[in-house]
């Protein structure tokens, strides 16, 4: 059991080693204000972060970005993480995963790879990613399987690809994935900017969910499927990653330490940097990590709500982005006085025609 009296220690570190990426997904979870290469932590600074994380109790590291393969020192970081006895997972677009690179990463001790895919057909996938990447991903999947590493995949679902859900599952089975995360888009950062183009209508979502249930039957025992709920259509918010500052932490490319990957958008908080402070101090004592621990910070309706231990009032980033106050109830909640922020967005897309010309996204890095 995780103790409730004393402070919990983090299990997982998300190491966002760079914001650079060859793809331009319109739902990218990176902040709108992308960190430039010159602001990225050096190799030595990352090595120190990984060692400190291991000492703090972190057991697992997810290398992600942007595209982590763009860091030429990734192998060195992986090796160091394994020395610190961390389980190493690489989250990649697959672009740049040559045979040589994969061999080096395997030798460095990588434990598993999660490959993203944008759609089931190259045409749609490439138009979503803003880059001809689908064929490169197929080759990357093949290489990963051939190397003996387990292949996990993920797809972000939104209005333009939801209808392909069964074909996407089929494709991942064909590419040899053991597990597929079907993640309905979450509207922070770039995705919030593109919400008009990404948010599906309720009926589309219901059809997709039925297709998912059919596929789950059909491919039972072949692939493990994980459905991540589209929270805009729920009555209650999703729990904030097991509670703010309880299970995991993220280190951004420039060294800022965040309770979750979207947190840098909460402008009312300032985040400490590993260049100035030790990781364990930041975890235990920083104002940002302590801001929403426990339930004393909660205003009504969360304060006296019986669900507050279940969802912790929902997502702090979503509360801030949609209401301007990070302490308020997540507007997804049917008891939130700001629920209109969600329903207005849903209403605004209700009459969009499925056969309208391809949406115009605001792409990152364009």
């Amino acid at each position, binding site marked *: *059991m*995780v103790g409730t009296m004393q402070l919990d*220690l983090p*299990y*997982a570190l998300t190491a966002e080693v760079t914001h650079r990426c060859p793809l331009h997904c319109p739902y990218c979870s990176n902040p709108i204000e992308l960190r430039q290469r010159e602001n990225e932590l050096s190799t030595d600074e990352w090595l120190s972060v990984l060692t400190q994380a291991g*000492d*703090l*109790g972190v*057991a*697992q590291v997810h290398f992600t970005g942007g595209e982590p393969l763009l860091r030429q020192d990734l192998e060195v970081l992986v090796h160091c993480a394994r020395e610190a*006895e961390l*389980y190493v*997972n690489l989250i990649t677009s697959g672009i740049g995963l040559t045979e040589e690179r994969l061999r080096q990463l395997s030798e460095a001790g990588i*434990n*598993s790879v*999660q490959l993203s895919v944008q759609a089931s057909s190259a045409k749609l996938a490439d138009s979503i990613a803003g880059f001809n990447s689908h064929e490169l991903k197929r080759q990357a999947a093949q290489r990963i399987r051939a190397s003996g*590493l*387990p292949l*996990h995949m993920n797809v972000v679902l939104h209005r333009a690809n939801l209808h392909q859900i069964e074909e996407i599952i089929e494709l991942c089975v064909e590419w040899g994935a053991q*597990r597929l995360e079907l993640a309905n888009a979450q509207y922070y950062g770039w995705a919030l900017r593109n919400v008009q183009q990404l948010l599906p209508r309720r009926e589309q979502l219901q059809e997709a969910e039925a297709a998912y249930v059919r596929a789950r039957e059909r491919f039972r025992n072949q692939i*493990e499927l994980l459905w991540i709920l589209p929270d805009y259509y729920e009555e209650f918010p999703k729990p904030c990653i097991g509670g703010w500052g309880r299970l995991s932490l993220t280190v951004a490319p420039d060294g800022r330490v965040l309770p979750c990957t979207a947190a840098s958008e909460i402008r009312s908080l300032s985040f400490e940097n590993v260049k100035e402070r030790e990781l364990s101090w930041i975890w235990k004592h920083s104002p940002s990590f302590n801001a929403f621990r426990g339930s004393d910070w909660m205003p009504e309706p969360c304060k006296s709500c019986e669900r507050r231990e279940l969802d912790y009032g929902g997502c702090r980033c979503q509360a801030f982005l949609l209401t301007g106050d990070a302490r308020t109830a997540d507007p997804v909640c049917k008891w939130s006085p700001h629920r209109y922020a969600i329903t207005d967005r849903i209403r605004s897309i209700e009459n969009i025609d499925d056969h309208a010309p391809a949406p115009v996204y605001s792409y990152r890095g364009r």
Partner: protein
Amino acid sequence: MSAVKLSDRPSLRSPGLMKYDKARQTELLLLPERVVELNDTAGAILRLCDGQRTVTQLIEELETVYVQTGLGDDIVAFISSAAERGWLELCN
């Protein structure tokens, strides 16, 4: 429930890893997208699931370590639920 046979040689399912965590002083099972905190007995059982030992051997060893008899049913039940959750593979 998966049917566990006493002659099975259970092993951790790849890419799962066991880790003794000094910070928490407990055994952890590391999986690609989650970490499972194990109690002492669960940790001790999984440590012996190396694909070499049979379930029978594993029970004998644990009964010796804990100086107890009659642990078989509990151990088999745990192995079976761990296999169900995808932590173990039952090779024979």
